[in-house]
């Protein structure tokens, strides 16, 4: 048998030998290891290729100043492990409780070396199949009708060894530095290599190109020793606490903003780097000028002949010469290893650093090729957290689930509950789910209703970009309507120029919940699964098309949405009205009464009391219910005669809407809706 297996995994195609695996993963960074974990758990045939000798080689070098800006919260006051992942941005998902980042570092912003150590442990403790020192240098396709996707992926490593896979998961990250070419760019130092010793910058004047976290991190490091630092980039600074996007400038790095706005030592400027030019004078100082001036002069002439902006405009901002210019412009995806037949195309506009993918994370050019990890961020760039560990650990799981369904007939995991559990299921998830919270507006929980709305099926963390394909992608049926549960920030609340501290920014009342600004749960109700077309025509900036009904759970200061009246009650009313049923809980005594006075019972009584699981309730509770007017106390009734005509017991009526028997009907309660 061993021989047969060996033969099976060795394919001989036109003389070259291929090692075969169902799944090949390129890169053993966080995303690659995360994917490997799920493949391993599912018992799939997979291999991970890592060009370095250890996992997480990017973190071995970056960030240069070694401080991770992903939070590692030790304490939340809660023991709920799922909830705590909301504030743990470094751990990968696994069943092993040892592999939580807080066991590795006590720092709120941990050191990057810890991440490397963590990833090494993750790979070894979980015994993931990683082949180190294998750099894939070429990927091409081999057509084959038998293959899962109509073709195999052929991979070649640096030693010309070949591998063949049915599905290719690219988790190679973004590691090719972004470089801008302009006259004088040869004088620019790159973030990758620039010294991180502040001593080297003492008494210098520094210009930094770029305005991301790496630029500010670099500035922060040398802020105290330089004469001054100027930073230039195309767009205005985007503060992550204003944009609610973790990829924008984080407060931990923004010390330079302080010195700029307070004492005008250091400064920020906006301008397109493409129009820039740098000239070096005889003393080695670097002067800023514009490409425009260079184009109008005789190249051969010396530095003195170059027009500088201050010659014409004597208060030009960057007229002072610089000692050093540092480029901190971020990274892009390495497109070079993919054969043209894979049609691996860069995105458009500000997405050009990313490969083009669908909302299912599958390449637009090649079926069966999925992009994982930070390179898959084009799906939610500048919106959610898909480019970061705390986000892509969930999108990677989603891709794995899609693959399980597509290739192995394992439908998307789901749990079936009776309809009485609907409110509870949603409340439980919005309060603890981390995937929904991190990947807000990208991953959604889906409630698929069963016929007659007596039961429902709960699917977790499905990518809403492919909602229209839900039946095909999950193997579940959505014939009787569905709820989509996502988290959202308020519209027009986030933005680089928004004041996020204005008075009355928070909504407190449930009836104004739709105006909530901070991250809060939103539930969309559709009678039918939205079609591809409806998804395409959805309003701009909307994650989903117009629903048949929508509910916002009002934002909460503690992100604790368990308040009975402000959170749960309005949600129940919403669900009741979508399903056209009564989802209240009743004590057994009420169910007993209904059983004798109604031909039909409310779902809670049907699914509980009638199955001999009625809620008897303690003496105190029933007493409270009586006091609240929601339960009638019959113990002291005299049955001598009529009810006195004036004994208005509205509460009892509320409970017992009944038309057939001549006790004041409350038809107007029902009619109110039609009017």
């Amino acid at each position, binding site marked *: 048998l061993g021989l047969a297996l060996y033969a099976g995994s060795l394919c001989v195609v036109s003389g070259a030998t291929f090692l075969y695996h169902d799944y090949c993963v390129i890169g053993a960074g966080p995303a690659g290891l995360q994917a490997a974990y799920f493949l391993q758990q599912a018992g799939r045939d997979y291999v991970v290729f890592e060009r370095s000798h250890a996992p997480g080689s990017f973190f071995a070098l970056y960030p240069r100043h070694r401080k991770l800006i992903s939070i590692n919260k030790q304490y939340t006051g809660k023991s709920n492990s799922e909830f705590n992942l909301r504030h743990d941005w470094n751990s990968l998902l696994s069943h092993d409780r040892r592999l939580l980042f807080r066991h590795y570092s006590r720092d709120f912003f941990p050191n990057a070396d810890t991440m490397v150590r963590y990833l090494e442990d993750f790979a070894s403790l979980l015994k993931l199949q990683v082949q180190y020192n294998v750099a894939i240098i070429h990927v091409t396709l081999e057509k084959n009708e038998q293959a899962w996707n109509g073709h195999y992926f052929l991979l070649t490593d640096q030693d010309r060894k070949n591998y063949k896979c049915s599905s290719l998961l690219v988790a190679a990250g973004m590691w090719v530095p972004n470089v801008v070419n302009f006259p004088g760019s040869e004088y620019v130092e790159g973030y990758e290599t620039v010294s991180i010793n502040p001593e080297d910058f003492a008494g210098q004047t520094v210009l930094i190109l770029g305005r991301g976290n790496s630029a500010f991190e670099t500035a922060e490091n040398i802020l105290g020793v330089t004469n001054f630092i100027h930073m230039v980039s195309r767009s205005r600074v985007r503060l992550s606490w204003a944009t609610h996007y973790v990829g924008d400038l984080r407060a931990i790095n923004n010390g330079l903003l302080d010195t700029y706005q307070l004492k005008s030592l250091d400064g920020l400027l906006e301008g397109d780097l493409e129009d*820039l030019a740098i000239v070096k004078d005889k003393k080695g100082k670097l002067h800023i000028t514009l490409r425009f001036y260079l184009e109008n002069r005789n190249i051969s002439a010396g530095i003195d002949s170059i027009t500088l902006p201050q010659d014409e405009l004597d208060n030009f901002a960057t007229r002072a010469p610089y000692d050093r210019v540092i480029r901190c412009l971020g990274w892009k995806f390495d497109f070079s290893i993919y054969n043209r037949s894979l049609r691996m195309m860069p995105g458009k506009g500000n997405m050009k650093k990313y490969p083009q993918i669908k909302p299912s994370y599958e390449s637009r050019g090649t079926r069966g090729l999925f992009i994982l990890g930070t390179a898959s961020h084009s799906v939610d760039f500048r919106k959610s957290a898909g480019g970061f560990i705390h986000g892509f650990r969930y999108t990677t799981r989603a891709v794995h689930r899609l693959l399980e369904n597509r290739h192995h007939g394992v439908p998307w995991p789901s749990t079936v509950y009776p309809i009485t559990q609907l409110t*509870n299921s949603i409340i439980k998830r919005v309060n603890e789910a981390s995937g929904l919270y991190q990947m807000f507006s990208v991953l959604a929980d889906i409630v698929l209703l069963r016929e007659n709305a007596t039961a429902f099926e709960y699917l977790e963390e499905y990518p809403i970009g492919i909602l229209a394909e839900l039946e095909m992608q999950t193997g579940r049926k959505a014939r009787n309507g569905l709820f989509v549960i996502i988290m959202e920030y308020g519209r027009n609340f986030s933005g680089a120029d928004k004041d996020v501290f204005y008075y009355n920014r928070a909504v407190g009342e449930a009836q104004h919940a*739709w105006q909530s600004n901070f991250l809060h749960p939103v539930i969309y109700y559709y009678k039918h699964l939205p079609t591809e077309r409806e998804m395409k025509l959805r309003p701009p900036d909307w994650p989903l098309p117009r629903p048949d009904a929508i509910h916002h759970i009002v934002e909460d200061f503690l992100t604790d949405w368990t308040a009975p009246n402000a959170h749960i009650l309005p949600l129940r009313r919403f669900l009741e009205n979508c399903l056209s049923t009564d989802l209240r809980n009743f004590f057994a005594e009420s169910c007993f009464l209904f*059983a004798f006075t109604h031909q039909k019972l409310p779902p809670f009584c049907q699914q509980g009391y009638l199955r001999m699981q009625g809620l008897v309730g303690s003496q105190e509770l029933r007493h409270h219910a009586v006091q609240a007017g929601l339960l009638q106390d019959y113990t002291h009734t005299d049955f001598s005669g009529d009810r006195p005509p004036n004994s208005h017991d509205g509460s009892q009526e509320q*409970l017992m809407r009944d038309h057939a028997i001549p006790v004041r009907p409350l038809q107007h309660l029902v009619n109110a809706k039609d009017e």
Partner: protein
Amino acid sequence: MEAQKDRWVSSLVFLLFCASSIPRSGSVGLQQEPSPQHYFSGLEAGKASLAFFTPSVSPGAQPFLEQIESSAEALQDYGISVVKVNCPKEDGSRYCGKENALRKAFLFRGNRLIREFPTDALFDVNSVVANVLFALLFNEVKYVETLADLENIENVLKGKSNMVFAYVPATGTAEHRAVMEAAFVYGTIHQFVLTTEAALLKATSHDDPDVSSAWLLFCHCQRATDPAQPCRRTALGQPLTLLNIHRHLKLMGAPLVTEVAEDPEKVSTVHLQLGLPLVFILSQKQTYEADRRTAEFVAWQLLGKAGVALLSRDLVDLNVLHRSNVALKTPDEGMPVQYLVLEDTDEVVTLVEDKTKVKQIQEDEEEEEEEDEKENNNQDIQDDQVVEAVSRDKKRELPLEQVLVLTEENFHSSLLEAAWTVVLFYASWEAVSLAVLRSYSEVAAQLQGTPGVLLCRVNCWDWPGLCSQENVTQFPTIRIYKEGQQPVTYDGMWGAEELSSFILLSRVSCPLPLATVDEAEEYLRGEFPSELSSHHHTSLLGVFSTASSEAREAFEEAGNILSGHVRMGMYFEDDALALSRKYSVSPPALLLARSGGRSVEGIALSKHSVQDVVQMIRYELLDVFPEITVPNLPQYLQLRKPFLILFSAGDISQMESQEMLKLAKGRAQQAFVACWLNLKKTPVGHGILRKYFSTMPSLPLLLWVNLHAGGQVFKFPPEQPITEVNILSWLEKLQAGLEIPSSTLSEEDWKPPLPAYDFLQMMEPAVPELSPHPGDTPVPHPPQSPGGDTATREEPSQESTAEEVGSPGRDLRGTAPRLAARDKQGKRHGEL
């Protein structure tokens, strides 16, 4: 009800609209004419107008003019214009010249003067409208003073058309106006006759009438064939208002008996539309003629109160008792048609009249309630009894010292500490969980000191991983973990008593193998095992011979399923035959010792599938004549049979109990559940009776409740003693459809108690792109002031905000040419 009122109001409005579409000149309200010449030259032939003449210099306020002015609009509806003509100072003509003409109003048709009205006849709007219409409708409305006049008119009309006879105490009243307005619409159809003579009123009504209130009769003269007899009359039983008269005339105009050949649920007639019930006389081919006569007779009796239809049963497939002869359909939507067996036409009339009475009371109450509701109709008020009760109780600290808190860390080690570890999985935010937690704390107190039992709890909100690992997907869940065995999930009532009994029973293996015959006998007496001796449960003993291993396995498996709920023992020693013979059964068999083993029943165990055995055991454990309580009702409901239930104020008497027991054990046993309810022990029974009866009936009370089919409730005649014979004969009548149900269970679905916040609707104005058809719906633009900044009107998207709005110092490409052009304006420090 509201809807019906609307319907007939709208049809009236339509009639009035027709009437008012008579061409009219000028706008609504009072017209002004500069001079008499001008006024007379403008009069159109056939057009009525009411004019009054005032000197241009008014000699002082004339109050009656105000009344005329305010009636202008009302008269406009009838095509009558009201004109104020100014008299020039020196005018001495007929209308302006004379002093007393100025104190009168003049009614013209064309330029012909019809009537002068003295001002004291026009004291208010009603009098103006009544008098003007009275004058105009001179031919349509006959005024009579004597009975002879009335009889003359009646005789002339016989066989031709109907007559509407109205008595008003005085002309110019609101009632007079209502009659005249009705005459305006119906005057061409019916002959209207009016009187103010009290003597005439007395002559036309039977009892002593109140002469101070108006009175209207509809006289069916068109049908009258006998010249000697007066026409049949139907009085309007309500105050004389235009709406009531209109309604009455509509009803009189409807066919006396409607013949229908479709499902009564679908039938709709003018009666139902006007909010009156419709009585169906169920007819058959053989008796059609007689039925038709009955229907007509009833119809005359009910004229104005209800409609009558003749329904041919041969044409419609009705799923009702064959004996039913009358059906009643009420105008309330969603009320099913009632089918009845009535013996006398009087019963039909009484039935309808009672319904109407009840409804009127209800209507009054409803109005009050609507007002209440408006204040109380708050979506944000908790209407879930469990949630509200739990939140009112949240400040009380629960006595949970006896309940061990489990975590992910100590869960598995704690399970090893006791023989039986009971674990409540709950969520600290979930109301039902918290309600159960309260009962759980009571159980903990009760079971304190019970050896081997440890009560624990896991808060799944703290330990979701543990809960999902234990496969707990719903809250609350209670599991009993026994060493080395699969945990048992509790599936009984969430009450302290039930739970503690479950836990205690679970300690003994189920079924419990018994070693000797003596032990088996002790077991049946409830003395063995000692752990359960304090427990009064029915004991069940399976007796098996060595041959019947298949049955034994099924029994053992059934024991696993029923563990905790049933006390089960098992005896399969060699002398099993001797034991079974003692109870005259042959193995495999079940021995059943109810309450302390006073009597032991033997039942042959013929079925061998686990499911069947479970089913059989459950069935056998049910009592023959149980007292129904809140916890045990579901077991009996599962039989899906009608209930014959005796409501009793306390314990039932020996006699009743015996009679009922006889009945329950008798031949009818299969068909229904005979049971009783102790109102003292189960006070919620009062709630049931209140629902069934508007007045509290006397107790004890025997009811037949069709819980699962149709929902009818029948009341055993209270005057008869409750004996087996009486009940059986009553049941026979019931089955034959000879009894009328006292009440019917509501068929209503459980709809949402209150609406939700409609966020979609709230969002639409703020988020225009959300509207259903972005192309079709015009987005309302705010009015633009000239020179207003249109560019800022559209809220730019998040992306463009950063890049476009913040542009002054942004684009280097734009900067360079400007620099070249020596444009020094607007440069900022933030720009290169």
